[in-house]
């Protein structure tokens, strides 16, 4: 498929091209993780089959191979989600440091369970997040692309209320 009739927009294609350049010429598929992230960013934080197909075409991969990648990694959303993506680490270290309290607090505060979005389309609580490699600062969460460590319910409130 040529770039001109792809549903990936010019900005996305430009960014994907930038990633393709970082790998050997015959290994375009190495850019699949980045390409999916870029495609997701283009589409309000989630991927559609159409976007995954476009990535497959652009990187000359089998479509199913792209579906496999997209469904494997938790950083890709395959259903529409609210605009702020909140991932609370619930892995061992954070759990020992009280991540359950944080999860309970947020679920009560927002009236949604993990894996759900608020009705106003503002907050999405990612269903399950494994270690984000910030164990020293547990409990922690990732809000969109930003890490917040050493969380307390009060600190979480401040962060969440500060989101538009």
């Amino acid at each position, binding site marked *: 498929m040529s770039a001109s009739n792809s549903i990936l927009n010019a900005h996305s294609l430009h960014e994907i091209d930038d990633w393709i350049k970082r790998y050997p010429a015959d290994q375009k598929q190495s850019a699949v993780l980045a390409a999916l992230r870029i495609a997701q960013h283009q589409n309000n934080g989630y991927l559609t089959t159409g976007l995954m197909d476009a990535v497959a075409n652009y990187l000359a991969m*089998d*479509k*199913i191979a792209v579906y*496999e990648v997209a*469904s*494997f990694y938790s950083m890709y959303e395959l259903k529409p989600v609210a605009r702020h993506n909140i991932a609370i680490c619930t892995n061992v270290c954070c759990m020992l440091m009280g991540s359950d309290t944080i999860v309970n607090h947020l679920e009560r505060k927002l009236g949604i369970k993990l894996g759900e979005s608020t009705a106003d389309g503002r907050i999405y609580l990612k269903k399950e997040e494994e270690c984000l490699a910030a164990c020293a600062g547990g409990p922690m969460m990732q809000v969109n692309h930003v890490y917040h460590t050493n969380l307390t319910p009060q600190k979480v409130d401040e962060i969440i209320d500060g989101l538009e």
Partner: protein
Amino acid sequence: MSEELVTFTVDGQELKAPKGSMLIRATDAAGIHVPRFCYHKKLSVAANCRMCLVEVEKAPKPMPACATPIMPGMIVHTKSAKAIAAQKAVMEFLLINHPLDCPICDQGGECELQDVAVGFGGDVSQYTDVKRVVFDKDIGPLIATELTRCIQCTRCVRFGEEIAGMRELGATDRGDRVVIGTFIEKSVDSEMSGNAIDVCPVGALTAKPSRFTARAWELQQHPAIAPHDGVGSNIFVHTWRGKVVRVVPRENESLNEVWISDRDRFSYQGLYARDRLARPMVKKGDDWRETTWDEALQIAVNGLQAVLKNSGADALAVWASPNATLEELYLLQKMTRGVGSGNIDHRLRQTDFSDQDIAPVMPWLGQNIEALEKLDAALLIGSHVRKDQPLIAHRLRKAAINRNAQICFVNPRKFDWHLPVAHECVSADMVQQLAAIAKACGVNAAHLSALLGAAKVETVHQEIANKLKQAASSTVLLGNIAAQHPYFSTIRQLAAAIAESTGSVFGYLPEAANSAGAWLAGAVPHRGAAGAAPAVAGKPYSDMLAKAIITFNIEPEFDCANSGMAMNITRAAEFVVAVSSFVTDSIKSYADVILPLATFTETSGTYVNGEGFWQSFQGVTQPFGESRPGWKIVRVLGNLFNVAGFEYMSSQDVKDELKVQCQTLQLNNKLAARATAAEKSSGALQRMGDAPIYAVDALVRRATALQQTVDAAVQSAVRINSRQAQASGVLHAEKVKVTQSGGQAYLSLAIDENIPDGCVWIAAATASTVALGATFGTIEIEPV
């Protein structure tokens, strides 16, 4: 992998194997059983099921035999306490999520999981939680899914990627939620997809057409030969209570390896089509009645003799299927010539017979099928090999992938390929393309001078020429479309010249199961058995102004190049005997007697495949109703015609008689030079087409599951590119009226940029196009 052999020990037994090869290969070769699920000898190593764990001395933990390279002096225990404990633990783990539904599972009784569980499973599982459930997906008419049973071995995924060349199935999601499937609603469309059923070690993928018909232990297994293409794939026919319920591959490394095409696997459904003929039928006035064999045969012979008496012996013509057995074809030609006619032919889709006298005694592949995967370059001319001979395409694909072989095509349209294609020359004028390649090869023969003079060599032609020349081993092959092309003789001359000048092996991809054998049997008008000069020479089937016709195992409107013309000839004939497994209104419209013919599972016989390999087989079921094996029908016809030498007691006798004549025969595709003509361009819109994969013969056309596949669905449209559609005024039409040779058809229109300008692609051998003329020819198209 080095070929250096090293010595190592397994269970106290000293073995030798290439250094670095995987342990499981060596244990398999030595007959030491190691349980496994994900390992398959034809697929890459995944090492994800862990069932093949064995103890290797000095290794801290058990090692998977499928992914442990052999090292010198290695000491392996496959049945030590440590190995067995590991295998049992894996077994318990794999059974955690596997449902205990063996009694209702189609795989029960032939299930690798069941078998291994008997050996390594425990009676009690420590697992007490809920088992996972996976919802099934509809992946098409051939494969049934029951994905809760899946153990994620990924054999089906690797099969798709590595063998079928289409990655259709995948493992999505992760951890305990991994699901095998297509992810989106989609059918699995590979022409070899059915092999995924065989590689699946559990009942997650089963054969949709045959599931729930019988339990594996009730089936009887019979060896047979696949009856559709020139590969001669070895198959097992599975019968239950005397009925064929399933076909699976029979391993033959030199032909089909462990695979078969879906056509070979599922065509058996046609055996029990509703229009299968059980008893002989004769026409009385406008009515048909069933009768006895004695009466039907007598009426047939009397009717034919009456015509021959008035019009001479050469008023008899015999049109035989290239899927008929060697014995049937040999007896047919012997009978025809015994009666005094030379008009017998099996080349029903061919139209250019002008150079038949210089054709080889048996046009063949020119090499073994196995040799194809050792090629460095190949030029295929007029061939949709992927759909026409799927297992030959598989060999070429192996060459392309493993050896970087340069596979090139010259075709009248673009096709979707599952192999890396080096060059594809697409033009409605194949002759011109070939002439350019020949010129680039340096061909300078007098008989081709007009063509070569006019040829314009472009980069692609030069590239193809260079690749064939530079390759250590290369071939030039003529495919089905070439054989059916109106300029076949010219194409053949050019192809032979290209092969000769580049040192390539020249060969033919035989269209049907016994196309090659039909030449040996003498089922051609100009040659007798084994290529001998015939007692009476005849005319090719399309020139046969026959007043009396015997059709053998064909439906002329589907099996002949020019369906309209074939029907006109049969309907105009004074007396027609149809030897057929099926009875249709169409057959009734021209025949006077219909004799029920046993099918490939109901008769003994022999097929000669593209490499010239004779494969005999036995009947595995009783003939349907009162139908009879073809060789017996023709033998009795021969007796009734009083032809001498028709006292055969078995098909073996017939084969032996022909075998003696073929004994000194040397297969040779070398072609004598012959002056050739250029393709005349009329400027008018041209029809092109082929016989699609699931329309090639009467049996496949009745295989209901195959007819529901995507490959079958694309058959019935007019395909045209958007530029030509614009020029022809049909760009926005959904349906079009096409007119050819006085016949008309209303067909749906598909815009397809794979078709060159000036052409439409209309498949032959389908019900919607029978009213039309030749597969290649001038055509008119208008919107409706």
